[in-house]
């Protein structure tokens, strides 16, 4: 329980940081969820805000999965990606207080400018899919980081595959 309460404190701090960013999406300058605010919703039974709480961002990030992966130089959604996004759309529909920034990323096998455009294609494909599943467009926006923010740093396909991604970063809306 000790480290759990610590985790709660940390999410509370993150939430504050998101509020001061001045951007209603609360993802100013961050990547991969640096700006993800946390909901402190009170849920009976499970620890609120933990990955066991289906209404928590931690549940969204860990249990549903906050990211989808892409093939080399592609922005079309694989069946696996679509399944993840179906679940993301369901969560976003249920938890309508949250907004989401979809961050598009590319691996290092490409020129810088092209990869920004490619990351935008990936983020946009993800956003369009979520909209087609009922998420209101005004709750979503996209940013491309090109190849600037890899999560894996080896120069092999195992790493590249994880870097070719679109990450749905959720945050609380201003009205909540």
């Amino acid at each position, binding site marked *: 329980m000790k480290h759990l309460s610590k985790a709660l404190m940390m999410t509370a701090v993150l939430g504050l940081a998101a509020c001061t960013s001045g*951007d209603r*999406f609360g*993802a*100013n*300058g961050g990547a991969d969820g640096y700006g993800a605010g946390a909901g402190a919703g009170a849920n009976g039974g499970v620890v609120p805000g933990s990955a066991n709480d289906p209404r928590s961002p931690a549940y969204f990030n860990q249990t549903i999965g906050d990211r989808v992966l892409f093939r080399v130089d592609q*922005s079309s959604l694989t069946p696996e990606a679509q399944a993840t996004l179906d679940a993301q759309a369901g969560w976003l529909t249920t938890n309508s207080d949250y907004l989401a920034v979809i961050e598009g990323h590319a691996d*290092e*096998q*490409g*020129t*810088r*400018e*092209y990869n*920004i*455009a*490619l990351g*935008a*294609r990936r983020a*946009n*494909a993800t956003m369009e899919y979520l909209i087609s599943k009922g998420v209101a467009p005004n709750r979503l*926006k996209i*940013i*491309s*980081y*090109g190849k*600037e*923010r*890899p*999560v*894996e*740093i*080896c*120069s092999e396909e195992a790493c590249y595959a994880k870097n070719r991604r679109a990450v749905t970063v959720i945050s609380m809306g201003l009205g909540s």
Partner: protein
Amino acid sequence: MKQVLAQALALGLALVAALGLALPNAAQAQDGPLRIEITEGTIEPMAYAVPSFVAETPGAQQYADQITQVIAEDLTGTGLFREIPRDAHISRITSFESPVQFADWKAINALVLLTGAVSEQDGRVTVKFRIWDVFAGNELGEGMQFAATSDGWRRLAHKVADQVYSRLTGESGYFDSRVVFVSESGPKDQRAKRLAIMDYDGANVQYLTDSRSIVLAPRFSPNGERVLYTSYESGEPRVHVLNVGAVQSQIMPAGGGVMSFAPRFSPDGNKVVYSVTSGSNTDIYMRDLASGNTTQLTFTPAIETAPSFSPDGSRIVFESDRSGSQQLYIMPASGGEPTRISFGQGRYGTPVWSPRGDLIAFTKQNQGRFHIGVMRTDGSEERLLTASHLDEGPTWAPNGRVLMFSRETQGASGTSSLYSVDVAGRKLTRVRTPDGASDPSWGPLQ
């Protein structure tokens, strides 16, 4: 940050004033046979000797030695010239005015001899020099002198080297120039980036931004006073314009979408071409900086980016994946139907038009390797100058004879550095920077 730059600015102004004192009518075209042609084939570097410049005042010895060394590094770094080591010299130059013993320099096969002297007084350094055609036994052009505040001594050396280069090749030099680039630190997944300016050889690095936001691909204006770059400061990537002297930057309104990037100035500095992303689509736009008028130049659903003007401003080369993969195209500067110019294997990106107008440099990806290459403007005579895990983003030296680019090494500990390569692909040199570096943009000859 501001303090450092204000200091740098003060130095710059002092230099400009000082260089105004250069002797008039000094650069005179020689008509002798001593000239090295810059060709694309293999050549034998021209042998030269440069004894340490004579210190004419008590405090000048250190400047004399350093200036001589930088001149030699500039010249030898081109690959066109080969320095004959000092320990092979027979004659000693002890006075700028004493006659040259040509036989002593012939004996060690020096074709060119460079002599000079340096004096220092009240914080100002003055350098004078003469270039000698050893086998003809006469002076090549007339002697010149340059002066600057003492902290500008490197520029004095570059000025002398530019004169030597120019008189021996018949082309303008590129040593007294600066490069704006992205200074990098930290591992790949936490890389901090900030804009910086340095001399072309990596000396005198000054930082223009802090590392709180991602910054990408700075581009000098033609006169070197402004820099376009892409910053994530507002969240999304947006084109910014930075005034180098005042160190003030602002977002350039892009029109058409939130994300804007890949900017470049027109040759007259009045317009900017750049990319705007809207949804999944990236197109090229042009903005007139005075009027604020924004024009969309491409209209396909493909990725169109990395635009670069021809030196006469009439055309724009850019990359597009409209054919299914990244390729190079040229269109009129007003937009309109483009012509594809790249047809080789692989993907072509980041085209840059040579300031001479004759060539287009590009990044090529093929079979898991990256190359910097050049082709003629009709796409013919493609030549690859480099090959590595990741080379990208070439920029031309102001005389169109050398390219600088970024090279990222492979693997988890990979870092990015700047390299230069001459247009014949003979001389590949790593540019010494204090930290990692990427995205160079070469400014004008000062």
